[in-house]
């Protein structure tokens, strides 16, 4: 069923809410009141419901099947979390109401902070970052602030980032005024420690390393890296996007890192929601803790208090957002943690790693593992097995759609040609993984047996065939316009 744009189906004079008649009070807006209502359609409730229900049915979701996007960690989103987040005592409280009336909320933030510190082995955590990339920014800002405090901000400007890093890492470093120096990967998919050693110097502010990294591998030299960068006077930022592989199994704080963000929507199951909202609390070492941004919660004789004023935290590097962070996500994450407990969090990491290795082992029969040996939470393949078939990584991925699966992450990490990065997470049953593997093995055989056309023309069973992204970018149409305006704009 096709769904019209709401601007094409809705009544611009209509509304789907019933509001009382205004009393007719004289306006106190002077000449700043608009003469007319905004020109947007209002749908009656039955129409609106159908519009969005039908739209939703054009989406794939983790509740429908495996969503093996490597590095994106699509795990089950428990509905208990949704229920708890909607309790009025959490959902219906204002960020600036008197602190005496939100003691439970402050306690919750403190509790969640406690779990995060215990799981990471770090002494401090900044709770306000609104997403993973915002958490990265928080960590790098703390490093910048520490360098300013040391008087070395002008001289230490270089940040080392592996080639395999998420794009956010270099973007974040630049947004903090650093320059980025790329670290090459070794042939086993990890940071090349020799190259790393050579890159160190007086101008190095720090390193940004993802661990487990985006090849799905644990950086086995991580302690050495930490020692080296510390000796060189720099700091160690660890990208925590893949913390779900090791939560409960090893504490980053025991490995020498100085800062790491935690994606509550990855490791701790808060919903991705088609792109957000995320939440990226950032743990900090003793060295960086004083620079944590405002606000933060302190406990004083059983009462909880928000420190919002720079006069109480002189070293704080500032403020990252208007309020205190993604409370709605905190509630969900803590609910997840209490449900799993320390034992369950570790077990989830183990299952996630076992599931990934099972996929790696089974798919290796027809596909090309990028590296030898076991992986952590995600299995990385190159397109070597497609060589000469005329089928590209993207074609292979689109063919998966016709089999009823969401494709894996493609062409990332950049260090592997035609990369296919598969992360099943702990939420998949063996039965689900077997179906998935059977299907991919069959596809690989099809590709090798010359059925390229099937792949090139995929997807055929999705709500849309392949979409023309080039046209979208070359001539951007970013909004609906009335026909007249659209015609004019086209000229």
């Amino acid at each position: 069923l096709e769904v019209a744009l709401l601007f094409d189906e809705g009544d611009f004079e209509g509304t789907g809410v019933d509001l009382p008649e205004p009393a007719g009070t004289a306006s106190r807006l002077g000449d700043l009141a608009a003469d007319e209502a905004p020109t947007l359609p209002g749908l009656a409730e039955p129409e609106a419901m159908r519009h969005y229900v039908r739209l939703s049915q054009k989406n794939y979701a983790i509740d429908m099947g495996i969503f093996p996007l490597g590095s994106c960690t699509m795990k089950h989103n428990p509905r208990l979390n949704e229920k708890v987040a909607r309790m009025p005592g959490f959902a219906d409280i204002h960020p600036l109401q008197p602190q005496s009336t939100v003691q439970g909320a402050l306690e919750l933030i403190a509790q969640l902070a406690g779990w995060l510190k215990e799981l990471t082995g770090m002494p401090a955590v900044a709770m306000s970052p609104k997403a993973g990339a915002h958490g990265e920014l928080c960590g790098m800002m703390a490093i910048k602030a520490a360098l300013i405090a040391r008087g070395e901000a002008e001289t230490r400007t270089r940040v080392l980032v592996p080639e395999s890093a998420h794009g956010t890492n270099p973007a974040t470093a630049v947004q903090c005024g650093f320059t980025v120096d790329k670290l090459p990967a070794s042939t086993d998919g990890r940071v090349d420690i020799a190259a790393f050693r050579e890159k160190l110097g007086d101008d190095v502010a720090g390193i940004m390393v993802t661990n487990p990294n985006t090849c799905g591998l644990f950086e086995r030299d991580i302690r050495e890296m930490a020692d080296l960068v510390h000796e060189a006077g720099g700091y160690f930022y660890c990208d925590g996007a893949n913390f779900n592989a090791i939560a409960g199994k090893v504490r980053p704080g025991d490995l020498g890192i100085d800062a790491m963000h935690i994606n509550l929507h990855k490791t701790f199951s808060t919903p991705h929601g088609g792109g957000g909202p995320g939440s990226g609390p950032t743990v900090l070492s003793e060295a960086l803790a004083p620079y944590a941004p405002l606000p933060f919660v302190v406990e004083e004789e059983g009462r909880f208090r928000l420190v919002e004023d720079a006069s109480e935290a002189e070293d704080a590097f500032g403020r990252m957002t208007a309020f205190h962070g993604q409370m709605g996500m905190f509630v969900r994450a803590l609910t997840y943690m209490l449900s799993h407990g320390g034992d369950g969090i570790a077990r989830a990491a183990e299952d996630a790693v076992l599931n990934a290795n099972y996929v790696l082992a089974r798919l290796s029969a027809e596909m090309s593992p990028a590296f030898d040996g076991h992986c952590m939470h995600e299995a990385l393949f190159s397109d070597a097995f497609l060589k000469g078939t005329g089928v590209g990584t993207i074609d292979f991925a689109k063919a998966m759609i016709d089999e009823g699966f969401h494709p894996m992450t493609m062409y990332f990490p950049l260090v592997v040609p035609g990369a296919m990065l598969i992360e099943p997470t702990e939420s998949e049953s063996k039965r689900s993984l077997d179906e998935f593997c059977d299907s991919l093995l069959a596809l690989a055989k099809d590709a090798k047996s010359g059925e390229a056309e099937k792949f090139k023309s995929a997807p055929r069973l999705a709500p849309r065939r392949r979409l023309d992204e080039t046209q979208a970018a070359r001539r951007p149409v970013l909004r609906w316009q009335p026909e007249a305006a659209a015609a004019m704009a086209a000229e």
Partner: protein
Amino acid sequence: MRYLPLNEADRAAMREVVGVSAVDELFSDVPADALNPKLDLPPHQGELSVERQMRALASKNLAAGDAPFFAGCGAYKHHVPATVDHIIQRSEFLTAYTPYQPEIAQGTLQYLFEFQTQVATLTGMEVANASMYDGSTACAEAALMARRVTGRKKVVCSGGLHPHYAAVIHTNSELIGDTVLEAPSSADGHGSIADMIDDETSCIVVQSPDVFGHVRDLSALAEKAHEHGALLVAVVTEAVSFGLLKSPGAQGADIVVAEGQSIGNALNFGGPYVGLFAARQKHIRHMPGRLCGETVDADGQRGFVLTLSTREQHIRRDKATSNICTNSGLCSLAFTVHMSLLGGQGLRRLAILNHETACRTADALSAVPGVEILNERFFNEFTVRLPKDAAEVVEALAERGIVAGVPGGRLWPNDPEMANLLIVAATEVTTDEDVRALAEGLKAVL
């Protein structure tokens, strides 16, 4: 454990396929002394037990719906139709990822396109992105965008800008060596930053209604900014005001950022919220954040994709316009569903009701001895000067179960001139009894 589908037999069979005898062999790259730390954490628990603990925490908070409630300053208590929450909880929206595979994500992509259209229309701008974390981060990103557009490094903030928004700009812009000037906060609404604009100014950041509730005329400022080659960044923290006020776009703004929480989203103690970000068409390649665009598929059917990603970090890496790689997905969906129900007409009526309620509230408070209203023009929020410290008054009223507003001392902790100010917001949920309770409460504690 209820979230883990593998049973022991599965695990054993899988270990065999993988070729390990124990799962910890898969963690062999972890330094042995760091593996399996002893954690001081409780064991797993059932739903009933977890729900009870969370309920106990929730019960220690006073929900806005359970009190006469007048706090605003960037977050507002509104009624959200039940339909909105129902739709955002649908599995297909709730548990989807970023629409990287557009063929099976048209649901998300089409609503983003609709969202962008709604935001552009409300702000009076040509284009809008697919949302930002919240209003304050959108505001800081706007300052960074103005830098990219103008190549200048000086930001000028008006005195009516929410101090937390100003703080976020400071934190982001000063980190890269830019200058951020702030006009003094003027509670009476008379200050202007026109004199602070010069040829080095990348943008001026002006909020209206401002943090004290004053509705500001942006047109003259826009003209002045443009004379100097600077951009006007307009900031709106109460999205319902779009229903009744002249749009920032119509007043000459170059970038409009807003907090969208008021439409479709709960208070949530400050987050998650949804930042609205709109700009002129000519600047789109400098915009941060995701953009959804229209295109066609292989059969020629209309469809939607994420586009202009060459601005973004996953392609451009260190050359990206920002490091942002999410939008505020579900919150933007909530916004767009609520907005689709309201329509322009419904939003206007909602805005009128808000304004009328605030007028009634102001009238009731001005009758309380010692209370002075500072606003001439306001939308649904205004500032009063009290004869004593407003934070103490708020606390005293909180003990009576009334949330009277935001005291000046909360936002400007070190400014004695602000201490006696109380910023009061009223919306369509405010009843006459609420207003009476506030007025009588104030009489009692002043």
